């Protein structure tokens, strides 16, 4: 029973981190209707900045710099690449982000090299005992920070004029533009927020029990893609639900791998994709996605 409780708590913690990444996909998708395949590279960039800077300026300033850097990179990609293609369709725009991802990922992965870079986080490998359940401090921090970041984001999305502008743009771009919403700023803002969330997520993907940032970290970010799709790519609630679902699934697959041969040999890494295919078979638009209605 305690084993299960531990697995669930760990699963929820990593699920919250996946939700952060998935939220980034959803924000970009809602404001620009683009699936951002360059998201993993933003995450890698944020994590890399933290890893390089934390020795010189301390962990917290480094984290700030990482978040700011990833946000700036996101806005830059939007400004330099996507804005030139405003007239293109969402499909073409999504394909462009694949190209951006190839370039950014190769460059950052080259800088990381074959090493595993520690992020210098204050939690280390300390654990907390709660009623017989052992939880790593880093996991608790991940859960707390992710929940806080998501709450702040959702409140801002709902109540600030930035959030209103973004929702208006998602609803109907042309009308929003006529009402004075500056679409360029909205989409650059969405990319920046997505980048910032990705950098936060990068931190928690690389803390205990993971040894640190390596070039495979972007694959962890890719796992949030099924999270966004399972929830429905246009739903913020869906991103949260999808993220948690993926996190728990993965934790259970890792936890019970000794019981079933099927689960061994890295099954946990593909469990999110399997889950996604099952969900898509039943609900093609995801659990919380808007159903598209069409008559032929």
């Amino acid at each position: 029973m305690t084993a299960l409780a531990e697995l669930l708590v760990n699963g929820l913690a990593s699920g919250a981190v996946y939700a952060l990444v998935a939220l980034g996909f959803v924000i970009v998708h809602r404001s620009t209707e683009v699936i951002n395949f360059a998201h993993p590279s933003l995450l890698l960039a944020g994590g890399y900045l933290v890893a390089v800077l934390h020795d010189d300026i301390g962990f917290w300033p480094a984290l700030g710099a990482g978040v700011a850097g990833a946000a700036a990179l996101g806005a830059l990609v939007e400004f330099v690449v996507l804005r030139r293609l405003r007239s293109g369709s969402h499909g073409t725009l999504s394909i462009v982000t694949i190209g951006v991802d190839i370039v950014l990922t190769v460059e950052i992965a080259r800088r990381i090299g074959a090493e595993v870079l520690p992020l210098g986080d204050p939690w280390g490998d300390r654990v907390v005992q709660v009623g017989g359940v052992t939880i790593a401090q880093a996991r608790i921090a991940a859960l707390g920070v992710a929940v806080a970041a998501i709450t702040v984001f959702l409140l801002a999305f709902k109540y600030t004029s930035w959030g209103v502008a973004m929702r208006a743009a998602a609803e109907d771009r042309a009308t929003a533009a006529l009402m004075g919403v500056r679409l360029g700023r909205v989409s650059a803002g969405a990319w920046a927020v997505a980048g910032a969330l990705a950098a936060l997520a990068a931190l928690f993907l690389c803390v205990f029990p993971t040894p640190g940032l390596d070039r495979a970290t972007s694959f962890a970010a890719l796992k949030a893609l099924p999270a966004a799709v399972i929830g429905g790519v246009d739903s913020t609630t869906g991103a949260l639900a999808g993220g948690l679902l993926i996190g728990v699934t993965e934790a259970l697959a890792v936890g019970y791998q000794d019981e079933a041969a099927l689960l061994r040999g890295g099954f946990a890494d593909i469990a999110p994709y399997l889950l996604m295919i099952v969900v898509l078979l039943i609900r093609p638009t995801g659990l919380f996605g808007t159903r598209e209605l069409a008559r032929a």
Partner: protein
Amino acid sequence: MPDSIPPSGRRDPGPAGAGTLADPAAPAGVASPPPGGDGARPASRAGRGGWARAAAGLAAAAAVCAVPFYAEAFWLQAGLFAMAAAIGAIGLNLLTGVAGQLSMGHAFFLAVGAYTYVWLAAEPERAAGHTLHGLGWPPPLAAAVAVAAAGIAGGLFSPIAGRLRGASLGIATLALVFLGQHVLFRAEAVTGGVNGRAVPPMEILGLRLADSPEPPVVLGVPFGGLEMLWFPGAALLALAAWFARGVVYGRPGRALTTIRDHEIAAGAMGVPVARYRAGVFVVSSVYAGLAGVLLALVFQRAVPEYFGLALALDYLAMIVIGGLGSVGGAAAGAVFVSLLPQLLTRYGDAIPFVAQPGEEGLSPSEAARVLYGAAFVAVLLYLPRGLRGLLPRCAAPASRARAVRAGDAGDPPR
């Protein structure tokens, strides 16, 4: 995802319309087939342009056949590699460029083709502590069944693909790559696991297309495996391109572009949308399977690591750089993407930004990826029709007329 990929080119003549109506710019006689003409092809096209084209085709074929007599092994291997990539890219372009179904899972179908061939053609053996299964079928049969198996895999996935649009479909096919690679790593008895497995050489009519201690000498050139593989490879590529052109410029191509541009409108016009979408998925998988078999034969060893996300993105880059929806463009993109890393590796010491082993800086393969990633973005930004978009400006009138006649399947993606 309201739009499919790429979007409707609204300025362009609709594929269905332009195919039947005479374009004022087209030479008279091109658009209207003569009564009792030789089938679908108007007789007037066999005029001077036709002869010139035939001569050019023959010259190209002769040039391709001459390559093994002059080129060294490096170029032969690179060329065969590019041929296999071109076959796969043509298939992916039918799916993604013509029909607008974004697939990031092409590597999976390549793997199905490659490993089915290996498993069917190989003899059972014991290697590195575990037994490797194999059925020991004759290689040509194994290759044919492997290609069919890739098609069946595509058919099995098409119910999922049929329910998804645009980038969601891309993500779902991405899942295929990860699932497939996992299975490849785990199914050690068939794939050899992490270390991969040797690929049994092709054998046609008793002739082993492999290196032998005493290679047959043709016109003074010793023919090893690569030289012998060159001819079937080129023939398969020509066949694949010819068939794809038939699909693109024929009735199925028009149906597929209509589906890409507006699925509901296509359905309303009587195009069986679901059947065509499933069909193009199968055809594209068959191409991938063929490419996979050829790749395995060229590499002589199939390693699961190879069939990963990077390969899937490579194929996507090929068709984007070459030009979405164009057969020749896909082949050109495949040559570019697959030759670039090898050229940078070989001539890296002469290129300033490429580092040598042990030096700081971009390694040749990294430099290649950065270059074609940048080309990928630049092509979509500034050259929406890809490399092929550069061609019509200097093309002969005959091919221009054909493009107009066929509704110009390579609509610019904007």
